[in-house]
């Protein structure tokens, strides 16, 4: 069993006990524990189940590479699945539950899969579930989805907050082990701005655990002194619990700072995502120990040798009383010695190397530890916990030569440098044969905006695995000339590693089917070999076929072993097989951190008109229009949406309506060449518009497609005010600036987007003039302000510009007033209009009234494929102009095609409302068996004015087919018939607006 030792534990505070629960069981740990060490101290080795076979899973590692020990953490609005216990710091009241099992962790019915494993080989899902095709959607996928996944998704809104932080540093050092400290210390002397970050809660990395000495003092003393020195330097920023998550183009670096994971009740952001621009990045990210592939290497109690050492030294936790060490290198001997020092038993060190190790092996032997060289593990015994191992010759096929009782197997297959950050942005790797690992190739680094390298690796991340090598390498990474004066450690006498990818070397099929590579996704040596046999030679294909390295740990433990097995199966050298792509983030980061501040009210900008507050207080039913919120209608208590819309239309047509039109774009165009310029922007002639007058204009893209429309007012000789649609304001302004800056830069024209300078109110209906007269200050009679004219003056004491234009067919004035007076004018109009039953109306009433008049709406009648000619707007396309944006495109053969669908009105025979977007069918079917079409509905409404459904649509030869009846199938298969009509349904002569 695993337990807490009576003494020791460099990171725990025995004076500060912490209570927590695991699957409801009350447990105790200490401040400074990780959840992993606290669980082990409570003899909780079994912590989860694997993904595919639901095999029992124990803690394997002690850091970010842990593949197995994932738990659901927290409760309700602080619940989060898939949290690694090895990187979760213990706090008072922590609650964790295990995942991926049913009904319980100890008895999991899904474990039956392990007995079916020979029926569940690599690619099983691809092979099994492909036929019959229709089963995928209705049978296979729902069932697989239920059984897949690890933790549950949270069901409640996250209670925590998150933020981003943009920062710039000359140098960012990722990793606070001795290499990172060395690099930061040397670089800091030069005065440049430096950020040094460490993903754990402690500086110094492994050196204190390994017992290294630096500059003649214990590693911890040097670490403390170095941190103290760095803290005193104003140009250095230090961050613990901060992980380099990804390296991107031009020195962009994402870092993930976990501020409150270890203190969840603190009133602070839980995570902070640093968005850094770094002049240079040093990746001092260390190395990860590799497992060995022997039969039963997934049984709880089989752990990385370094993790066993960490738990003993850092947390005074004994993973077990009898620890067998199995290795292909010298480093694991340190674990054996640490176990021994803790007063526990090491029955045997199994060293696969025929000659064994160097000085450390001698130390072990002196301690009386049995060392077996040239040997391997034939199989591990045990179910939910290791009970022993059988010994064999590494070179053989696994014939058992001895059995050894133990409850922990500490394995080491060598170390893999953490090259992720180096690789994210194009840094290449090279294979280091002596150490059997991929290391960053300094000749092919990631390059930045100036074409030079912006990432360097330091320490174990470069493959410099001993303290002496790591310190020297870190000094070199910053400034090779300063290596001599930098901190140093004594070289250690270690024998070379021997690559061991399968143990024993000649293991047969039965053993290979029990050798796990990917512990979380249940990928075994036999699966990778099967993939190779079936032709998956590319490492990227083999990965996806077997799911090797696709679990939440992204193959941190298993990838190199998997590659080596694949290369063995393909009889190709490892460097030739290559690696899969390293993609950010290094370990999963929270969705909250990615979102940052963008949640709730500030998820995205919400644009408010000057009258927004009034709308909100008066039952506005909102419609999003871009980032604006516009009232769709004002829904009185008890009123239906349809009822509100009808009321608004009727009141406007009968008496007086008000529309908040502030969101319409308003772009001022001024200059000696402004007339020439607006002629290019619009399809109409705008240069000949007289000052004081307005004209409706169309704007096309260079493709010829109708892009925007609106009323243009000539302000004075060299100034035009261009109104755009609500959604088009920014786009049209940018479109104008683009042509002015990049095409006609010699034209003397300035533009200004005044959209937000003015509140604009449409005063609409038979009583529109009467209410404005009540406000007083201007003569707005028909003679002094005729239709399609504008004027300036004062209304109700406010400075206004009045446009006599109409989008509803009613007598209508649009009043522009500086936005700061918008609400005041709105309130005056409501007061003065009370006797006329003044009725604010929303966008739906606006749309209905314009449709009753046959006016097109950008975005309804247009969709980016419609030209003005399709909408019978030829009258608005100047034939006198040599050029305008879109003119050349209108000459293309497809645009000239006489069979282009054209705008018509549609009236259902039964008075109902046509479904939006419905197609008119024609006789016959196409090659896919679908009915031919001959038209479609572009906008459709119930007209309160006319009492029946009206619609507009684009129909083949439509204008020539007045009175014909078309069939429009509904989605339920029934058909609604509609007659082709003139699109102007109401007041064709314009009698109502010209009063």
């Amino acid at each position, binding site marked *: 069993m695993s337990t807490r030792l009576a003494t020791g534990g460099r990171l725990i505070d025995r004076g500060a006990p912490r209570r927590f629960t695991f699957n409801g069981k009350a447990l105790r740990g200490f401040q400074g524990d990780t959840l992993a060490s606290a669980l082990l101290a409570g003899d909780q080795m079994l912590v989860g189940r694997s993904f595919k076979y639901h095999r029992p899973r124990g803690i394997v590692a002690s850091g970010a590479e842990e593949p197995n020990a994932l738990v659901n953490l927290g409760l309700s609005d602080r619940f989060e699945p898939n949290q690694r216990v090895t990187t979760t710091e213990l706090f008072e009241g922590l609650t964790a539950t295990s995942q991926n099992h049913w009904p319980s962790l100890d008895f999991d019915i899904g474990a039956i899969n392990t007995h079916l494993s020979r029926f569940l080989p690599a690619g099983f899902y691809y092979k099994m579930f492909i036929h019959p095709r229709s089963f995928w959607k209705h049978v296979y996928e729902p069932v697989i989805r239920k059984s897949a996944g690890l933790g549950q998704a949270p069901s409640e809104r996250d209670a925590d907050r998150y933020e981003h932080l943009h920062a710039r540093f000359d140098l960012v050092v990722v990793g606070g082990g001795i290499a990172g400290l060395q690099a930061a210390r040397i670089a800091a002397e030069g005065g440049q701005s430096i950020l040094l970050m460490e993903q754990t809660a402690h500086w110094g990395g492994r050196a204190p655990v390994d017992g290294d000495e630096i500059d003649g003092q214990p590693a911890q003393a040097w670490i403390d002194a170095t941190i103290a020195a760095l803290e005193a330097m104003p140009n250095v920023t230090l961050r613990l619990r901060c992980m380099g998550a990804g390296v*991107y*183009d*031009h*020195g*962009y670096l994402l870092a993930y700072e976990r501020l409150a994971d270890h203190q969840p009740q603190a009133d602070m952001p839980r995570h902070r995502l640093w968005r850094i*621009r770094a002049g240079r990045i040093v990746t001092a990210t260390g190395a990860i120990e590799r497992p060995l592939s022997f039969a039963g290497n997934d049984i709880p109690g089989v752990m990385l040798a370094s993790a066993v050492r960490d738990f003993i030294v850092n947390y005074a936790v004994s993973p077990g009383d009898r620890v067998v060490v199995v290795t292909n290198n010298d480093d694991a001997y340190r674990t054996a010695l640490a176990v021994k020092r803790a007063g526990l038993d090491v029955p045997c060190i199994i060293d696969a190397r025929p000659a064994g190790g160097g000085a450390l092996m001698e130390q072990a032997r002196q301690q009386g530890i049995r060392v077996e060289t040239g040997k391997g593990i034939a199989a591990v015994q045990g179910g939910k916990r290791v009970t022993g191992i059988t010994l064999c010759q590494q070179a053989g096929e696994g014939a058992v030569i001895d059995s050894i009782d133990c409850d922990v197997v500490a394995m080491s297959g060598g170390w893999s440098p953490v090259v992720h950050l180096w690789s994210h942005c*194009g840094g290449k790797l090279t294979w280091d044969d002596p150490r059997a690992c991929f290391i960053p190739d300094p000749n092919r680094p990631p*390059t*930045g*905006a*100036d*074409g030079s390298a912006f990432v360097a690796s330091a320490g174990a991340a470069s493959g410099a695995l001993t303290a002496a090598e790591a310190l020297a390498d870190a000094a070199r990474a910053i400034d090779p000339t300063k290596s001599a004066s930098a901190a140093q450690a004594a070289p250690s006498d270690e024998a070379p590693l021997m690559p061991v990818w399968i143990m024993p070397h000649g293991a047969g099929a039965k053993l290979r089917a029990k050798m796990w590579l990917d512990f979380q996704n249940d990928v075994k040596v036999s699966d990778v070999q099967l993939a190779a046999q079936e032709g998956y030679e590319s490492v990227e294909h083999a990965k996806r076929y077997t799911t090797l390295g696709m679990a939440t740990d992204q193959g941190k433990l298993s990838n190199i072993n998997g590659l080596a097995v694949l290369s063995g199966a393909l009889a190709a050298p490892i460097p030739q097989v290559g690696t899969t792509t390293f993609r950010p983030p290094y370990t999963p980061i929270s969705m909250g951190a990615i979102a940052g501040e963008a949640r709730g009210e500030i998820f995205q900008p919400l644009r408010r008109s000057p009258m927004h507050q009034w709308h909100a207080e008066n039952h506005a039913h909102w419609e999003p229009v871009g980032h604006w919120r516009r009232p769709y209608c004002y829904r009185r208590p008890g009123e239906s949406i349809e009822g509100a819309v009808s009321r608004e239309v009727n009141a406007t047509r009968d008496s007086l309506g008000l529309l908040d039109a502030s969101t319409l774009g308003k772009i001022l165009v001024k200059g000696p060449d402004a007339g020439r310029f607006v002629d290019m922007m619009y399809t109409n002639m705008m240069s000949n518009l007289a000052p004081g007058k307005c004209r409706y204009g169309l704007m096309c893209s*260079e*493709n010829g497609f109708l892009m925007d429309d609106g009323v243009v007012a000539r302000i004075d000789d060299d100034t035009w005010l261009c109104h755009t649609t609500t959604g088009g304001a920014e786009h049209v302004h*940018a479109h104008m*600036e*683009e042509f002015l*800056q*990049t*095409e006609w*830069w010699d034209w003397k024209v300035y533009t200004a987007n005044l959209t937000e300078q003015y509140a604009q109110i449409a005063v609409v209906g038979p009583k529109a003039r009467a209410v404005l007269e009540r406000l007083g200050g201007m003569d707005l009679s028909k003679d002094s302000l005729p239709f399609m004219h504008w004027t300036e003056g004062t209304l109700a004491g406010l400075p206004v510009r009045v446009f006599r234009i109409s989008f509803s067919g009613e007598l209508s004035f649009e009043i522009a007033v500086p936005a700061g007076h918008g609400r005041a004018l709105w309130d005056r109009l409501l007061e003065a209009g009370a006797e006329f039953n003044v009725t604010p109306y929303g966008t739906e009433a606006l749309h209905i009234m314009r449709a009753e008049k046959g006016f097109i709406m950008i975005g309804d009648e247009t969709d980016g494929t419609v030209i003005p000619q399709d909408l019978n707007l030829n009258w608005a396309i100047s034939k006198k102009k*040599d*050029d305008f944006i879109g*003119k*050349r*495109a209108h*000459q*293309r053969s497809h645009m000239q095609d006489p069979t282009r669908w054209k705008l018509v009105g549609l009236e259902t025979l039964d008075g109902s409302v046509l479904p939006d977007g419905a197609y008119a069918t024609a006789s016959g079917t196409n090659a896919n068996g679908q009915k031919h079409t001959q038209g479609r509905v572009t906008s459709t409404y119930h007209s309160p004015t006319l009492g029946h459904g009206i619609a507009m649509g684009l129909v083949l030869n439509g204008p020539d087919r007045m009175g014909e009846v078309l069939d429009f199938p509904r989605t339920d298969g029934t058909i609604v018939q509609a007659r082709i009509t003139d699109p102007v349904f109401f007041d064709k002569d314009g009698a109502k607006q010209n009063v």
Partner: protein
Amino acid sequence: MLTLTCPCCNIACDETELHPGGQAHVSRAGPDSGDDAFEQYLFLRKNPRGVHFERWRHAMGCGKWFHAARCTVTLEVFGTYSAQTLEPPQDILDAIAARRPDWQGFA
């Protein structure tokens, strides 16, 4: 996530402050142009692997368009320059030649 220096206001812009505008130095084909010329203007783009000239607008900033010479493979930036020009200026061409001796030149 590029950084490009806007030549109009000298700000080293984050890519999120910029709006991309595609290939630079495309000349407009107007109403008198033939079908081929118009197709060239509207649709055909170089999309090279290597040295490329692009348009960018400093949208979250001074609002001005500018041009950038950039390697599409390594993202190395050779320089940024005024949008009011029909072809890359000599100092940009020199900068590219220094870094990419085999480059065939602007055509």
